[in-house]
């Protein structure tokens, strides 16, 4: 099973072991930006349409 930690968008937090963030680029009709939300590295990635293998 792939987890978030296998994904290119996952960035572990240096100062908080066991925690990380999913950082993705979004281009919408008006602007481009990077967005982040907290993610557990062990979270199952199989349901995520944005998964990109490291």
């Amino acid at each position, binding site marked *: 099973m792939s987890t978030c930690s296998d994904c290119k968008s996952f*960035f572990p*937090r240096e100062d908080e072991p066991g925690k990380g*963030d999913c*950082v993705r*680029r*979004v281009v*919408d*009709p*008006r*602007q*481009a*930006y*990077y*967005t*982040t*939300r*907290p993610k557990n590295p062990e979270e199952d990635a199989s349901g995520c349409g944005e998964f990109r293998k490291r």
Partner: protein
Amino acid sequence: MTAEPAKLDVSLQEHEEKQEWWWIAEKKRSKRLDYLRKAVWKKGALGGNYAPGIKVDLEGPKLFTDMWKWWKFDPIIMRRAKALAHVFDNIPIFITDHSQLVGYWGSAPHTISWRVDGASIVNEELYNEPGIMPEPEEESLRKVAEINDYWAGQTAVDKVARILDPEDAVKFLSGAIGWGAPTSAYGYSGKNYEYYLKGERGFEDIIADIEDHIAEAEEKTIGVPGPDILHIYDRIQNWEAMILVLEAAIRFAKRYARLARTMAEHLETDEKRKEELLRIAETCERVPAKAPRNLQESFQMDLLIQTMSRFEASEGAWPARPDYYHGPFYEKDVLQDKSLTEEEATDLIGEFMIRAYEVGGFGPRWAREGMQGITGTWVWTIGGVKPDGSDACNALTTAFLRTARLIRVSNPTFAFRWHPKVSDEVMRECFECIRHGLGYPSFRNDPILVANCMNWHGHPVEEARTWVHQACMSPCPTTKNGVQPFRMASATANCAKMVEYALHNGYDHVVGMQMGPQTGDARTFTDFEQLFDAWTQQMQWLLSLLVRTVNLGRYKDPEFYGRPFLSGITERAVERGIDAVSPEGERGNCWITAFTWVENADSLAAVKKLVFDDKKYTMDQLITALETNWDGYEQMRLDFVNKAPKWGNDDDYVDDIMLRCLRTMAKHSKVMRCTSNNTWPAAPQNVSGNIHYSSVVGALPNGRRLGDALYDGGISPGPGLDKKGPTAVLKSCGKIDHVADGRAFLLNQRLSPTQMAGEKGYQLWRAYMRTWADLGLDHIQFNMVSDKTLRAAQKDPEKYQEVIVRVAGYSAHFVDISRKTQDNIIQRTIQGI
């Protein structure tokens, strides 16, 4: 520095001749500002509907509700603190390309936030809003239903409504006599800038202070038993809630820092952008935890605090004084250290305004119609004086004015505190903004308003001089005891109903119910005094009902809602361990927003003249004509318009009636008391209530029909009815005592772009402004866009997206407001001065 544009190339000159200022702005601003300005998802509804692509944010509401449910045994302030902290820790955040300032109230740039715990009636509106559900729509609707089911009957407004007098509640909720919600869930929260925005402290300092207070309090709770220690237990809870949410706020900023660092180190290839991202990271690691050291940190701190306050409550206003509080950093960075160039600073200033412009929460249709084209009143105060009375204008004042012309946003707008020591350079910059058709800054007469603050609320002069606009018009100090933490919009009165009810024995023919007291059948009135007595009783009844509701809402708010974050940035609350909304230690700064006011004077004068003095018509004929909405009585209606004196023409006949109405109301303003036992003065102005109430106010003796827009200003004459020229308008308005007759008086005037062109135009305007100041008016604002441009924009809105007009207490893009509002603006008299 000069206000005159530098050498223009030919095409710029052409645009200038055609007064197409928006093209000039686009060509002159930096690439970064151009990108950021165009990147904004406009949240203000277009004549009532949200623009395509705008979606309601469901991430925040879900996070908030989940955590709220979890902590069900906590006191309300702690529960909110924990739920809010959960949102700060988990909501998706983003950093837009080219941006240098961060913070947004929502999970993505195109989202509008939804306050789930404010009012069930607002929550229900979500189902009636086509197109704003995020995809997949079905799943979103399920989420909304789940959240709504939980909050139904549990929101702040539900709780207040249950304890209101039932009759008051029905009349208040009818929407006929006022609007708003008696809760801080949708408040206009004043900010205690003197406490947290002077570069003297950060959240870590506040937390350390709170910890000391807790330690001291805990000593008492293990001391001598007695009644005097009992209140301390609640205070400790309040303090702990403040710490919890302030710590979460620091973590929220650090999430931005971490994102910026990740981008710089792993994702960005451009070296210059990497540097910018690292600066964002350093900035957000610094503020709001610690006091800011430079302009970027100062702006960032302010912006994050504004953003986080909105996660706590849907704040409908944005009281601010950016030149005063950020100015010292601008002068240090740009003029002394030269660590920032003027252009770099302009980018920051412009982005600071853009970040405010993009903010918007979900509002029900009626609220959006009352505030067409924008999402709240972000009226930023600039200029003015320092607490010692010296001129407070600085290099950032002019920098903001110049940048406003490059950015051309309709929200925030500026309101300029004029006083006799303001330099010509600053006045020229203000004038350039008006000439560029922005409709702002509006002008506020500072000496008058400082005196007004002292007169009505007893603010000491040094505190009065810190005043900012708490919403559109009403001043509020930013000091510990002067700042007003809570002013929701429900003390907003639809004043035209006063005269309407006086004529119909308190009965409302539009909503079909007995509203006001039965003051007698007006058909039987035999002299003007009887009518005026009836009017007085209706006025007192209407204002008292609204004020009772607000007072109760405020009194119960710490129990029904709770503001841990606002409390943590409010010195009075930090010191005492109270919810900032608690009136304890607050001086009081309430006001009634008096919508649709001038119709009272014009209507009463018309009845006096044509019925009681000239005896041309009888009361019976008049009431019959009004009941048919003047249908079939056109000649009679025109007589009531044209054969009776109208406000704004320097005619004592009607002006005396205006003064009598104002003074009768001012007397009642002193009878009604707020939760701090202070007064309730009225501030006549309209936001865009003149349009909102056009279908609520029945026919009136000033000649209006049900459906017609009401007059646009608070003391502006009716469109086209000011026939004696601009000085007569000022003279009429100058008869009002702007210190003692009320809290603030909004005057809209239209000027001709042709006449105002060049140096000659500026000099004419300066002379006009001198008269304005000499007559002691407290406010004036201008539209300077020609009929021709506005008509062209109606015909071809796509080509005129960027035309801005002053609507009432705010500006909006002309194409975003309804046809009726547009026509109303076009038909205002263009005064030749």
